[in-house]
């Protein structure tokens, strides 16, 4: 029972932490570009303001359009709840393994792209088209990286994988290095960051995510934005706990949990710094260069799996 309460609390904390993560990256980026920029708490104010505002719905909007923000948000929340963030003693991790996690993200994306096509404007359709293109290239690479990890731990359960990684001695497995690199590239593409998509602007420069949610307003927009921030945090947590797994609590003892919280927050903030630096020093790719980027991710994941099978199994 304590496990379930703990899982609920952990999910709630991650959900509440997500806007800070997005704001933190944005603030750092502004600083790196010599701008003052809004503080890291700004996304909370934005979300609060949006949730109080009136919803403006286009005449052509269908029920799919109105349901999509709730579907996208709740699916992302459930996806967050199955990822061991602070401790691996998570009963919810047994509900769904990595493959189901990928399935959740795909479900959220499915509804997001449908919502983009719903109003019947050209921009929304363009966003949806690009989103499904990018994701259909990213998904094999993502699953391949996850497969390598789970073959390493001979389990697809995230808790088991992470505790296997923490418990095993520190050896540089080539398979883990390659698949981590592939996974990070996929994470950048899937969360819509530079060089695939630019999260900071509306229109013209941002071609994918913002194009799909252009018609949303009020609380619907708040949910969509929040879900995007959650997705960023989710991928960051996955990178933090799969690539650098040390610090994750193995038990539910208070000391371990405190250490776990501290570790994961530090790792996330550090990842935010890395992301901000990476986004500052490079420019966005043209859309048709994106397949090369994702092809690289796929090759890296493939190399990871190959090196696992050739070097580590036999």
């Amino acid at each position, binding site marked *: 029972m304590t496990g379930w309460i703990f899982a609920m609390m952990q999910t709630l904390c991650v959900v509440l932490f997500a806007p800070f993560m997005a704001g933190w990256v944005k603030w750092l980026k502004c600083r790196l570009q010599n701008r003052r920029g809004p503080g890291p708490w700004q996304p909370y104010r934005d979300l609060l303001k949006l949730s109080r505002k009136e919803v403006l719905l286009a005449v052509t909007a269908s029920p799919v359009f109105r349901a999509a923000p709730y579907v996208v948000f709740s699916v992302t929340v*459930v996806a967050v709840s199955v990822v061991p963030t602070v401790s691996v003693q998570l009963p919810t991790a047994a509900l769904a393994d990595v493959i189901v996690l990928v399935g959740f993200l795909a479900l959220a994306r499915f509804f997001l792209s449908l919502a983009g096509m719903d109003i019947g404007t050209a921009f929304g*359709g363009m966003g949806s088209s690009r989103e499904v293109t990018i994701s259909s*290239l990213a998904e094999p690479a993502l699953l391949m990286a996850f497969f390598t990890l789970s073959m390493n731990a001979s389990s697809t359960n995230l808790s088991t994988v992470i505790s296997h990684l923490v418990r095993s001695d520190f050896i540089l497995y080539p398979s883990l290095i390659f698949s981590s690199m592939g996974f990070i590239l996929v994470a950048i593409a899937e969360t819509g960051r530079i060089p695939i998509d630019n999260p900071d602007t509306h229109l013209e420069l941002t071609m994918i995510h913002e194009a799909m949610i252009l018609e949303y307003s009020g609380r619907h927009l708040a*949910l969509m934005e929040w879900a995007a921030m959650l997705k960023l945090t989710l991928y960051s947590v996955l990178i933090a706990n799969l690539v650098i797994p040390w610090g994750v609590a193995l038990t539910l003892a208070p000391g371990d949990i405190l250490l776990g919280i501290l570790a994961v927050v530090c790792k996330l903030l550090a990842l935010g710094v890395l992301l901000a630096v990476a986004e500052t020093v490079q420019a966005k790719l043209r859309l048709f260069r994106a397949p090369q980027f994702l092809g690289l991710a796929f090759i890296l994941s493939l190399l990871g799996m190959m090196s696992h099978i050739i070097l580590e199994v036999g």
Partner: protein
Amino acid sequence: MIFHATGHLEIAALALIAALYHCLNHALFKGLLFLGAGAVLQQSRQHDMEKMGGLIRRMPVTAACFLVGCISISALPPFNGFVSEWLTFQAALQGTVLHSGILGAMLPIASAMLALTGALAAACFVKVYGVVFLGRPRSPQVAEAQESPFGMQFAQVMLAVCCLGFGIFPTWVVRAINVIPENLMGVGLTKAANTSWLWLTPIGKQTASYGALSVLFGLLLSWLIVYFFLHPLRRDNRIRIATVWDCGFGPLNSRMQYTSLAFSMPIRRIFSILWFISEKVEPGRQGKGPRYSLQLGDWLWLMVYVPIGKIILKLAERTSRIQGGNLRVYLSYSFFTLLFLLWVIV
């Protein structure tokens, strides 16, 4: 079968169950999608997808069922397509138990290809649903389409409910299918459903598990929490219906929407290495608008089958020279053939 040959009977049973489950699912959601497509064709009297749009307002029941079918066929949780894909992945991930390195590598790579297919299927069904049911109607017949009669609706709703049921109660389905591998190989997948009826655990609880019903419950719970959080009872539900924002350029019309061809254009361009694609836009002549033509071909067909076919045709033309039409010539052919055969035998 590979697993069976190498003596890994349990994994063979798992793979067989995954395949059978997948067939069953295909029967359900493909049937559902065909019924939906039939209803749309009959009611809109339109065969061209590019002329549909906005049917969700005219045919809400068909649209809802079609959505269920789309989600199922794209292998997304919590519907049935996902369960069988998940089982297939679980079987493929056991590839390392095989001692042959090539086979062990091929299985996970094949499943990565399965993931690519799944993602492309999702892209395709977003396109179909978005173009046919969402947006604005693109032709007057579609704008006046009526909902299909009760019988057609009922059949679709039944199949949609089955899709959901097979998705959230996988343990019962697996237990039912389990009879087949038990009879064939003497080994069943008893562990899968034994842990509890809520959990699907094909190999072991530590290895992998999927609680489909709990997942659905979690989804609904978080949906409710969010809904009540955003809709406090004291406040009225403020939604204002307005016209679509058009950037101040004047009214939007249905021709400005993304069409299905436009939607799949990036995918066509990325995979243009694999297929022969010729896209042409001819400028309009004599007051007619420009013409757009798209030809898709398979490289394998063009490079392998077509040359072979040409060679065979040429050979046939050469041999047709001996066809004189004269009966005596034919009789002498068969006589010489007989002589030749006798010579061969002796």
